[in-house]
């Protein structure tokens, strides 16, 4: 299993903490880059020499929301190839449809219970760490 460069786009501090803590308790060595919103994420993505392997994206964010960010990402010739997994509370069918229409690599609902969250994150990260990824 290789270690991934993960860009986490999330405005909720505790959610950020949850991912770090889950990674730690699962004893994974992935590198997590944090962005508090879409704009910040786009700035980070300007450095083409150090692009993330995958993006974990929250939908409900201030400024540029998740879907807007996704559109910008998919319109970019280079960034469009980064697998983006939506990590959200919204089970709104319309959001789901919109995301898949624009192009996502997964849609994971944040569960209430922390232990369920850890279990989901474990599966998600282990899946992507066995995947072959391309860098343009």
């Amino acid at each position, binding site marked *: 299993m290789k270690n991934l460069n993960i860009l986490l786009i999330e405005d909720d501090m505790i959610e950020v903490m949850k991912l770090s803590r889950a990674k730690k308790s699962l004893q994974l060595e992935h590198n997590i880059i944090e962005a508090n919103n879409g704009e910040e994420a786009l700035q980070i993505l300007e450095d083409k020499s150090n692009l993330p392997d995958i993006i974990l994206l929250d939908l409900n964010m201030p400024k540029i929301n998740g879907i807007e960010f996704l559109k910008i990402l998919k319109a970019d010739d280079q960034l469009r190839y980064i697998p983006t997994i939506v990590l959200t509370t919204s089970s709104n069918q319309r959001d789901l449809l919109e995301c898949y229409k624009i192009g996502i690599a997964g849609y994971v609902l944040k569960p*209430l219970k922390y232990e369920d969250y850890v279990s989901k994150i474990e599966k998600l990260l282990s899946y992507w760490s066995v995947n072959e990824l391309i860098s343009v």
Partner: protein
Amino acid sequence: MSQKDVEILKRALERERASRKAAEKILEEKSAELFEVNKQLEATNAELTVLYNKTSSQLQGVFENIVDAYVIMDLWGNILKMNEAAVTLLGFENIHDEGNLTALVDPTEVEKVEPAFKQLFESGSITDFKIKIRTKQNKAKLVHINASIVYEDGKPVAAQGIVRDITLESEYQRAIETEREKYRRIIANMNLGLVEVNNDDVIQMVNQSFVEMSGYDEDELIGNKGGELLIADKSSDVIKQENQKRLEGQSNSYELVVKNKTGDIRYWLISGAPNYDLKGNVIGSIGIHLDITEFKNLQFQKEKLLEKLERSNEELQEYAHIVSHDLKSPLRSIDALVQWIKEDNKGEFDDATTQNFELIETTLEKMEQLISDVLEYSSITADLKDRSSIDLNALVEDLKQILFVPEHISINILNKLPTIEGDKTKLQQLFQNLISNAIKFNDKENGLIEIDVEEQKSYYQFSIKDNGVGIEKKHHEKIFKIFHALNKSKESTGIGLSIVKKIVDLYKGEIWLSSTPNEGTTFFFTIKK
């Protein structure tokens, strides 16, 4: 007596004898002549008699067989002779009845009699004389008379006439007049604009309402093309198309946007029909115009409102999702924080604290369930767009897989469930909530849930029967109201049955229950076909 005397007497006698002889001869000759003449006369007379009889019988035939009533009267109006038709017309019993024609005149028209007689005597005839009469049976009739005087030796002795019953004819005439007047009044006074155009759309006739509707004077309209004058969208060829339909003999209604003289845009509903001449050729069309501008405006308003309503419904839906998200996020965070505290302080808490932490977790779960249910409840809208054929047997079988059904509970479908038109998600929610309630509130060793259906004329009546705890009568009404959970347990938020009620309402059905505490409950609901 002397010889001389004798001689004289002799000669005189001789002369007398001679002249008597001559006279006898003349007489004889005359007599023969007379006989000859008499013979000739007799022959002529016979001829004349034949001729007279012939003519007379001919006349008699005409007289008897004529369809019209034929009457001969004396100069005072007394009937001398009449035919069967006259008997019928005048109400007599047979042709030998006696009567006076003037006595038959309707009392209101007596003054017409004298001038008519006067004219008859003076000019020898009268034609087209119309008069109301009362027949022998006192029936009012209008008759038409042509009469002429009969002369004998140049002296008027009688009059003959043909009498025709024109009562019906005049009634028809009057009926037609009345009808015509009726329609004329309707056309003049109706609130509908009436226009007659020829095949080139040139206006031939308009009524007052159309004048008012269009804002143009009658003079400005007649002789002009209606379409060119009034139609708002000059590029439109509606009029042309419609006129084509008239030529093909079709009638129909269509809407038209027009601009009246003052430049206002109005909406007209036009019913057009072809106009024919007496030979059946289409000579144009007749259009009835109804101003539906107000109605149209209301319709536009309604459409706008509906659009707005749809938008605000959508917004509300979005809002519900966002609120639910925003409410759930802190719960998730609290749960994570609680877990971390527990992890970081493993073995350091006493039992009471550990139990309290568990209570926090349960409360969080309940809170989350509540938020989910409220979202679900608010998501049930009247939007029945996603309708498709749903096989309820398959739906219930699916639910059996999805729901957690404990070993001791069996779910049976008694009669084959129908396939109905509906929204799958909503129907699933409906059955799921009722079945899961039946499972949840079952306290028996062998739990039994029976699902059944009865087909009625216009709806299906479903029932879901359990042998569970039952519901007391006093609660039957309020259990369908939101947040009225009877059992404040971990699993129930009090929204499930209100969701069920809302869905049944959407399908124009009803829901009720019968229950005996400790024995079980049956929920009945109907869904319109």
